[in-house]
Structure formats: structure tokens, C-alpha cells
């Protein structure tokens, strides 16, 4: 009896449609988030993440509807991130059927938001998304905003430690240097952050080969998030899980039912 590692596909959603590099042949409509969520569920995804990249408020309302329709059909944990600024925003997503929310910019602007959300709904709903890159801060890792384009001079390790004290339930560590490269997760960053986080750590950014997944687990990640390798069909989730299982990691294989 061991807790399994988790494989989490991430879908970018804009105004109710999945965008950014989705290339499936076995779907009627590759842009429908509900259909893609179901497919990933069947392939053995342990959780799903929607990142709402809608620019407009009507786009965000549509995301609420997507969450509702997904939660009606897919019975695994669903995390929603993007543009969440208040307890009210969190409440709307949870009521629609999200199990967790991830926050980033709003928490950097006002760290007290972490405690407010944790006190209202419990730490388990709150994932702190940390977009970090190598830079000249104390630890050598800096937190960024705007998808890695803007530096903050905030040290990533100090931020993770502080956020854990304030009550986040999980850390999603995105390497802005590795993101989209498929050259492997930033293992040095995972190793550096691991001892600072007393909550589960999800590694993100850079997944390319099967070996990359295993290396991130060895570096200390509890869960692995990936987008393009799954969307482009480079790897199927079930193949990654089989590889990891053969390599000796505890993995939940898709239900025999």
C-alpha cells in the first residue's frame, strides 16, 4: 500500500475552448474541453487541470460552464487556474464542480489571499502555482509573472516556504526555462524546492521523454503535470504509466472496470 505518483494533463481553455496545440485524431472535436477531459480520464489521468486563459469576463463565465459540464461527466479531481483573485472567485468555481483552484499572480500581489482561501475552504482546495526561472536571487530561482515574461525579484524558495506557512495545500512548480522545450523537467529546481515544501509538489514544464518523468520523481516530485506531450500524442498517459510502473514507481493503472 503506497500512495501512487500522479500524472496530470493540463488543458488551456479560452472562452470555453481548448486552445494551444491540441492535435488528436481520435476525437470528433479536439477543441471541446469536456470531450478531452473524458478522453484523458479513460487513458488513466489521475487528475485534470484547466488553465483559464480567457481575457474577458464573458470568457471566464464560459469557463464556469465548462467546469460544470466536465464535473457532470468526469469523476476525478479537477483543478482550475487562471485569473482567480478572490474568495468569491474560488467559491464560484467550487460550486460549479472544481475540486481545487490554483492561484499565482493574485497571491504574489496579496499573500493574505492564501490564508483567506485556506480558512474558508480548507488548504486542500488551494494549489499555489509558482512560475520560476533561474536568476540572481538568493537561491538562484526567481518567481515570475505573465507567463515568465516579468521578473518579481522574489526568491522562489522563500516564496514557497512562506506560502506553505500561509496554508497552501499543494505547490505546482512550473519551470519557465524548461516550459515548452520538451528537454526535461528542471531537476535542479525540483531538488531545491522539495525540502522547502511540506505539501505535495507537482512538477511542470519540460516533459519530453519517458525518462524525464522518472527523473522528476527521483528529484522529489509527487506528481507530474504535462501538456504538449499528451496533446500532440507523443506519449499516451497509459504508456507513461506503464513505463513508470515497470521502472518500479507506484502507479495507479486505469481501473479494470
Amino acid at each position: 500500500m503506497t500512495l501512487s505518483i500522479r500524472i496530470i494533463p493540463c488543458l488551456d481553455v479560452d472562452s470555453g475552448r481548448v486552445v494551444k496545440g491540441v492535435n488528436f485524431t481520435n476525437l470528433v472535436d479536439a477543441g471541446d474541453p469536456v470531450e478531452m477531459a473524458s478522453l484523458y480520464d479513460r487513458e488513466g489521468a489521475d487528475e485534470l487541470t484547466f488553465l483559464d486563459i480567457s481575457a474577458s469576463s464573458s470568457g471566464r463565465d464560459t469557463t464556469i460552464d465548462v467546469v460544470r459540464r466536465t464535473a457532470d461527466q468526469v469523476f476525478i479531481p479537477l483543478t482550475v487556474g487562471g485569473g482567480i483573485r478572490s474568495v468569491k472567485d474560488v467559491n464560484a468555481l467550487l460550486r460549479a464542480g472544481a475540486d481545487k483552484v490554483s492561484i499565482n499572480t493574485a497571491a504574489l500581489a496579496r499573500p493574505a489571499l492564501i490564508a483567506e482561501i485556506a480558512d474558508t475552504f480548507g488548504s486542500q482546495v488551494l494549489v499555489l502555482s509558482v512560475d520560476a526561472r533561474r536568476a540572481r536571487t538568493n537561491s538562484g530561482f526567481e518567481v515570475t509573472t505573465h507567463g515568465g515574461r516579468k521578473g518579481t525579484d522574489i526568491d522562489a524558495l522563500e516564496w514557497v516556504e512562506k506560502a506553505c506557512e500561509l496554508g497552501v495545500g499543494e505547490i505546482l512548480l512550473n519551470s519557465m526555462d524548461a516550459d515548452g522545450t520538451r528537454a526535461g523537467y528542471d531537476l535542479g529546481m525540483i531538488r531545491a524546492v522539495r525540502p522547502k515544501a511540506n505539501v505535495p509538489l507537482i512538477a511542470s514544464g519540460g516533459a519530453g521523454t519517458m525518462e524525464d518523468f522518472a527523473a522528476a520523481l527521483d528529484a522529489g516530485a509527487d506528481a507530474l503535470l504535462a501538456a504538449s506531450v499528451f496533446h500532440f500524442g507523443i506519449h499516451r498517459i497509459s504508456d507513461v504509466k506503464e513505463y513508470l510502473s515497470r521502472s518500479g514507481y507506484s502507479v495507479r493503472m486505469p481501473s479494470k472496470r
Partner: protein
Amino acid sequence: MIAILDYGSGNLRSAQRAFATTGHEVVVTADREICRKSAGLVVPGVGAFRSCMKGLLAVGGDEIVRERLNKQQSTFGICIGMQIFFESGTETAQEFPGATPGLGIWKGSVDKLNAPVLPHMGWNTVSAPQNSLLFKGLEEESFYFVHSYAAKTESHKKIAWAEYGDRFIAAIEDEAFFATQFHPEKSGAAGLALIKNWTDSL
């Protein structure tokens, strides 16, 4: 009909949809009459032991659950909804010294797990008891857990154990009363099958 007790705790939509996959009519309500008469009552719960108990008492949920216990009407607690069936819980003991009393249906307290990384979050296996109703056909499956506290003491009830830091109670079957520390409504096909095992017994 199945009633899901609504006492202000989190995402009940998933629970409603998951229990509805069995074909039963499912209502989310705090209405005393409906909760009394329903064939099955689900007591959900997220957040913390103390706030859950507070919410339960505010809607008279303690009386509803005790009445169903006396009449041996089928009742299913999930996560914190299971924890509050025990005698006490020590979550938030830092801010509020001393344990919070639970409903005391089962002996023992709910205490923090001894693990370097908490919450215990993700899919884990359980060792199901012999002749289990809930786990029938599901002995090899994994279920989705999210919690930092758990009941760890042995009792005479039919118990499924799991392990994370400590060995803890993952599920209990006690005549008409059932409970899981994990979330069957979030445990994919295995979770839905476990829910069906319960609703088939109603």
C-alpha cells in the same frame, strides 16, 4: 431516494452527480423530513473537523444522524463526514485547545498523520475486510484521498485499512452505517462502483 446532507460544505455537485449515476434520485438538502425519509443519507464534508461539526449542528444534522442510527437507516459518511462519526478530532487544536467532540458513533479520535508531506493527497490502495459490501469486486482498486487527519485506533467494526505515515482507517462498515476517508465521488470508475455497491444495498 438518496439525500445528500447540505450543511455548507464545499463541492456537493460532484457527489450529487456521482450518486445519481446509480439511477437513484438524488437531492442535496438540509430538509429534516427528506433526510429522515430518504432510503440513504450521505454526509459529505470538506475543510476541517471543527468547522464541519459547527455546520452540522447549525442545521440539526447531529439529530438527523442519531435518529437514523437509532432506526438503523442506511447512512454514508465521506471524508470529514466520516471523521465526525468518531468521538473527537484534534484538527485546529492549536487555535482552540482541546479536541472537538464528534458524534461518538464510533470510538476513537481523529488525529494528524505522521508524515513529512501532508495532506495525504492522491490515489492509494486499501486492504478491504472480508465479506465487504462496499469493496465487493474492488479489492485491487485505488481510491482518491485528500486529508491530513485520520482515525487510527482499532475497533471491532469491519474496517478497511490504508497507509500513509501511519496505518489508518480508510473505510468502515457498521451495520447500517458506512463511511470512507477517501472520496468515492472522485475515484473514477472504481469510486462509482463502490457507490453502486452501497446504493444496491438500499
